[in-house]
């Protein structure tokens, strides 16, 4: 029965997928995407239908498993944050070549303004790169509907669909009305084009030509999509292209309706025909898009001379950072609202490691030891413990992407850095640190890999960590000598022992692993209150 719920954009996508007959979600946690999978994990329909919902080790394994489900004819969903798509890029690009059997939807959640990320890359570029359709909803209700339709579209056109949300859509709640009926799951059914699924050059060349043709059809679909529309306006001094959530910031500024012609775009490839229609009405076009100037760049090449395209590239809109109603207001030439001046009393309050967190005790012990080693460099990684860069610890020299601690330490050690210390969390280690550790073993690199193991994926709110309880066995299996896999318990009373172990492993000239293990203080509290 159709019902109304107050849902995050993430949850609306999840519910749309479940109602579309989903058979499995494959994902690795990452802000702002985590709540998609968590919503599916907690939904009664998931248990009733035995929908796969266990977290994957990383985004690449998630993407591949989902592709396997699509190969078997069932509907699958992949979820990660924008930089997760980099990790999954190989199977993602490959999936455009195989095409989809059962509906395959990839939800990539971008984080413009970098609220919780290391860059603000725009996933829509990946869509164009892979020649894949992209859906970018502008409201929570549209997110639900587009998620449902994305699966149908994926099967109709035999192509995976990339769904792009941004932070403000992923993490904002609104009323969402579900649509009847809830679709049944697909039966097991193998592809009718088996050659396409073996991407040997002889097959891939054929498929590539087909995909190029299909991409033109995807654009034609976008021209006629109900999610894209061109609305005329009485004032033709300006035309506006508003993509995804940018449409909301535009309309926010015109409660009685926008006076200018507006092209709203939520489905890509960018429908150039609609843009040409708009260009017939106006001489100046303002492009409003969340993220990087994908559409603006495209449009600059579409029109004949005499049409000015404004947007992020010419400074009409902020070049970096997310859109806001205020930024859009300024771009439209509307006066700002009267405001109170900012308070001069307010001090910044940056995020910090929780009081009582085991990472704190680990960094304290590590810093105490490294006081005696002038040349020490510490290679950090992605997780709560990246906050160890901040005062009072200031314990890290680098942080780039998932797993880079283990491998950058090796390159730097080979160049003469000593001691070279890698600091990585347990979930990040099983995500992307294990293969790097194998490299270290194979070259007998002189590094100490410290796994700060809090038995969970902490930063994203405490999801299961893939290697819990097996880290020592994994390291030994990769070839680290058993006597150089050391386990410590990060507590103030243990500082002398912890420091001695770290010191001994620095003095050992080969690969050592120090596992500093104590449960995350947040999950500990949660487990205690459940009891």
């Amino acid at each position, binding site marked *: 029965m159709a019902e109304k719920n107050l849902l995050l954009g993430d949850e609306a996508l999840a519910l749309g997928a479940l109602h579309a007959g989903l058979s499995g979600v494959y994902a690795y946690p990452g802000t702002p995407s985590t709540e998609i999978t968590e919503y599916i994990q907690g939904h009664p329909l998931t248990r009733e239908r035995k929908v796969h919902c266990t977290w994957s080790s990383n985004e690449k394994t998630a993407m591949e498993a989902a592709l396997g489900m699509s190969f078997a004819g069932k509907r699958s969903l992949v979820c990660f944050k924008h930089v997760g798509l980099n990790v999954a890029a190989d199977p993602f690009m490959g999936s455009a070549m195989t095409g989809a059997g059962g509906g395959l939807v990839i939800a990539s959640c971008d984080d413009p303004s970098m609220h919780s990320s290391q860059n603000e890359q725009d996933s829509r570029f990946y869509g164009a790169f892979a020649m894949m359709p992209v859906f970018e909803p502008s409201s929570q209700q549209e997110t639900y509907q587009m998620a449902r339709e994305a699966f149908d579209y994926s099967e109709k056109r035999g192509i995976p669909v990339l769904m792009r949300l941004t932070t403000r859509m992923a993490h*904002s709640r609104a009323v969402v009305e579900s649509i009847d009926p809830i679709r049944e799951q697909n039966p097991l059914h193998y592809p009718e084009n088996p050659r396409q699924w073996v991407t040997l050059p002889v097959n891939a060349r054929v498929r590539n030509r087909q995909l190029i043709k299909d991409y033109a059809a995807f654009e034609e679909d976008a021209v006629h999509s109900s999610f894209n529309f061109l609305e005329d306006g009485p004032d033709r001094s300006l035309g506006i292209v508003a993509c995804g959530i940018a449409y909301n910031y535009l309309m926010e500024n015109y409660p009685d309706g926008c006076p200018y012609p507006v092209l709203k775009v939520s489905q890509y490839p960018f429908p150039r025909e609609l843009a040409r229609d708009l260009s017939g009405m106006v001489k100046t076009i303002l492009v409003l898009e969340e993220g990087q100037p994908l559409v603006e760049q495209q449009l600059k090449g579409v029109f004949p001379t005499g049409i000015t395209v404004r947007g992020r590239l010419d400074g009409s809109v902020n070049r970096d950072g997310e859109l806001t109603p205020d930024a859009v207001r300024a771009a439209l030439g509307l006066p700002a609202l009267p*405001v109170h001046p900012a308070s001069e009393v307010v001090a910044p309050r940056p995020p910090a490691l929780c009081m009582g967190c085991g990472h704190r005790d680990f960094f304290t012990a590590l810093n105490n030891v490294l006081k005696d080693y002038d040349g020490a460099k510490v290679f950090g990684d992605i997780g709560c413990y990246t906050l160890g860069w901040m005062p009072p610890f200031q314990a890290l020299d680098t942080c780039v992407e998932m797993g880079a601690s283990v491998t950058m330490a090796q390159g730097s050690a080979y160049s003469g850095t000593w001691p070279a210390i890698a600091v990585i969390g347990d979930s990040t280690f099983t995500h992307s640190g294990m293969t790097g550790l194998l490299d270290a073993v194979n070259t007998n690199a002189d590094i100490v890999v410290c796994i700060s193991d809090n038995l969970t994926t902490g930063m994203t709110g405490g999801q299961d960590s893939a290697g819990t309880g097996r880290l020592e066995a994994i390291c030994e299996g990769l070839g680290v000598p058993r006597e150089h896999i050391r386990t410590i318990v990060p507590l103030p009373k243990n500082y002398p022992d912890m420091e001695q172990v770290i010191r001994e492993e620095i003095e050992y000239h080969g690969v050592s692993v120090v596992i500093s293990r104590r449960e995350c203080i947040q999950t500990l509290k949660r487990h205690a209150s459940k009891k």
Partner: protein
Amino acid sequence: MKQDIILSGVGGQGILSIATVIGSAALQQGLHLKQAEVHGMSQRGGDVQSNLRLSSEVIYSDLIPRGGADLIVSLEPMEALRYLPYLSREGWIITNTTPLVNIPNYPDMDQVMAQLNELPHVVALDVDSVARDLGSPRAANMVLLGAMSAVLHILEPDALREGIRRIFARKGDAVVESNIKAFDAGFAYAQSKR
């Protein structure tokens, strides 16, 4: 009718529990609602805020424009001031007065209170001690919600009380009643200060 609210505080204080009750009440009343939350890194003891918009008409933007908020509702006094440029000239601040000091350069409290008191429409109360005096220290957020409801015209206090009952129902009658009491205490305080 439309009311825009900025909820603010420090990661871990639970501003979202206030939003949950308002959301439940708004859904029941058939109001349009948008509520942008903060998840991820900033939740770790840093400043957090949520943009909560309620309206009888369609709401487009998930974010409130600068100068557009009708209310700032804060669980921490300095955090109330952080969002001042978002408050409309006629807007209200409803704030807790107990500081949460987890940074070395936290400003002088007299300065914080002086600046709050300079503003035309402020209700400042120590929600932690009100909740403690009622014997339910964990209901401090509901004291703040009660105080806020005195200036939140788009939802009747009874609709919010119903929201509290729905949200806390599974925790038992005792928890529901202590939260309602906390709400009523905050409401009474704000009424007397208006």
